[in-house]
């Protein structure tokens, strides 16, 4: 396998979690990690009271990097003091949201950073058994992590009586097997219990209350757990100075699709706009092309039209909230403004489409994905994701009915909020937003004044207007 090209960080990046990624001569073994100050933060952490580490994480205002952006300290705070049941920690390394590619680099190039983050988190949360759930398609990543765990154990950072503190911890790697829904934390837990990854209903199954083996469980993304290490090093208050209030720290964004230089960048949250990211860091559109559509936070995030404008409320100079109009390219890369503009920062995966792309075709690709990945427990999600796929399939095959855009909108509107897990939102938001924002492209393919044929077979006369195949 050819060694991947090493990327040189862009000057506007602020590398913390990715500090060692692509560094010349940096290797994933523990010797290299220790030479670079590895496990010093763990040594500091074990001198602290666990509750103080939790407080530092709270003070840091770190938000989860897996997709939902939930404050990590608040989640950790759900573990009751004096809990008598065992508490588990799970690292979510399922990385399966289309457009997301960040955890893989930490796993492959700097596994000990993640292991150290997990040990510190486990110490803070009084966890003695932790699992690292990694997607099945990272076989090499799983081996690297297993090796890292063995090395950490051999060096006294894992296992019994860690660093002589009396604290015990085992971490095991658990491989998934190709199902996207294992990224959803309760689906992941079911999968780890050896079952189909059917997400659990919340309440009562909030992992922090009733998680793995019905015990309190904290599930965090790879990147989130790495941040914990840096929070311990610099202190929560110092960490919170990076980024903007409520949108603290750095985060890794990955840009794919129609830009000149796709890639991953670790940026201070909110330190640049979407336009700066796409133009300055990624070199702008391909020659002769214009941006048409941008999905800002993983395939589940609602799409933006490149010429869209928004009215958002921002804090004025006098501290009062004032309304301001901004364009898509002016949206800062943070959690809150992205949400205020109707989409989400999600997993940090930005997918760009230029004016050579057909939006129905683009949506159809995502509809295929979601129809394939629905776990099938909830009727609206199982049937709806398949319907959306069948409608866009049929439109592309030439059988678009006049009513299709409305039907797509109606199907998508009847999934979100009506399902067990957030896959319902994830699968319906693309259709909802594509149809709303590119009505002309959907209308252009929806000409036939006939009712949509009954899935699954498309009636060939309708597709071809009775002119045969």
């Amino acid at each position: 396998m050819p060694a991947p090209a090493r990327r040189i960080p862009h000057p506007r990046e602020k590398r913390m979690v990715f500090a060692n990624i692509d560094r010349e001569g940096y290797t994933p073994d523990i010797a290299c990690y220790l030479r670079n100050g590895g496990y010093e933060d763990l040594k500091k952490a074990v001198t602290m009271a666990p509750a103080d580490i939790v407080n530092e994480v709270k003070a840091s205002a770190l938000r989860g990097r897996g997709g939902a952006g939930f404050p990590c300290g608040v989640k950790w705070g759900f573990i009751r003091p004096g809990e008598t049941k065992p508490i588990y920690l799970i690292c979510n390394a399922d990385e399966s949201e289309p457009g997301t590619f960040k955890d893989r680099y930490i796993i492959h190039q700097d596994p000990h950073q993640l292991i150290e983050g997990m040990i510190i988190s486990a110490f803070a949360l009084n966890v003695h058994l932790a699992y690292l759930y990694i997607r099945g398609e990272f076989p090499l990543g799983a081996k690297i992590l297993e090796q890292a765990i063995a090395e950490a154990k051999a060096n006294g950072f894992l296992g019994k009586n860690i660093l002589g503190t009396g604290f015990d911890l085992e971490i095991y790697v658990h491989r998934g097997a190709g199902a996207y829904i294992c990224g959803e934390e309760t689906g992941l837990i079911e999968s780890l219990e050896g079952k189909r990854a059917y997400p659990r209903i919340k309440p009562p199954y909030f992992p922090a209350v009733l998680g793995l083996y019905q015990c309190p469980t904290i599930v965090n993304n790879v990147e989130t757990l790495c941040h914990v290490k840096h929070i311990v090093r610099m202190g929560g208050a110092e960490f919170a100075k990076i980024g903007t209030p409520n949108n603290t720290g750095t985060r890794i964004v990955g840009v794919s699709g129609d830009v000149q230089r796709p890639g991953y960048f670790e940026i201070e949250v909110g330190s640049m706009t979407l336009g700066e990211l796409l133009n300055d860091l990624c070199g702008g559109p391909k020659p002769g092309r214009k941006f048409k559509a941008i999905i800002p936070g993983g395939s589940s995030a609602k799409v933006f039209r490149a010429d869209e404008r928004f009215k958002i409320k921002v804090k004025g100079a006098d501290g009062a909230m004032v309304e301001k109009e901004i364009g898509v390219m002016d949206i800062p890369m943070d959690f809150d403004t992205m949400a205020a503009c109707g989409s989400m920062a999600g997993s940090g995966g930005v997918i760009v489409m230029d004016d050579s792309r057909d939006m129905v075709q683009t949506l159809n690709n995502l509809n295929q994905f979601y129809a394939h990945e629905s776990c099938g427990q909830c009727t609206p999600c199982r049937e709806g994701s398949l319907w959306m796929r069948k409608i866009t399939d049929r439109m592309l095959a030439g059988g678009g009915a006049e009513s299709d855009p409305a039907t797509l909108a109606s199907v998508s509107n009847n999934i979100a909020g009506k399902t067990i897990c957030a896959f319902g939102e994830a699968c319906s938001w693309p259709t909802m937003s594509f149809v709303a924002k590119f009505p002309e492209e959907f209308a252009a393919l929806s000409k036939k004044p006939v009712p949509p044929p009954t899935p699954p077979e498309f009636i060939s006369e309708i597709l071809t207007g009775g002119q045969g195949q």
Partner: protein
Amino acid sequence: MQIPPELTTLIDEAISHYPVSKRSASLPLLHLFQEHFGYISEETILWIAEKLELQPIAILELVTFYPMFRRTPPGKHHIRVCKTLSCALAGAEQLKADLCKATGIPCDGHGDCHGGAPGHGDPVVVSADGKFSIESVECLASCGTGPVIMVNDDFYEAVTAEEIPNLLSQYK
């Protein structure tokens, strides 16, 4: 079914990772068997169920749920091609067709082509010489360097049509 001693060691090791519930070892055991035998046979399902003190259906339902598990043997080298959006924008569909052509696997030209066989990689379509099999898969988390493929456990990024002959020739 012959289970060699090395596999038995790995199985016991895997089960030891789940002190709370043996059932958790189901996926790891399925992986170990698929790695060793190439696919999941009826015998494997019965064996794992017995070992973990489960009903066979508890294992069968995993094999039918998780796309990575196969119930028929793949080619000597198994190719996965990512078909999801970022790779599709980078030309994954054409690449899949080119790979099918280079390996002599019939391709229906669609993203989820399994050489005309039903999807879910099951049964996997194998080239006539048994050397390769191809499967379309969803996002492999390397979207910035699409189109992305895996051959067995090896990862290849930004694969071009010109590279195919060289790439495949590494797999004897």
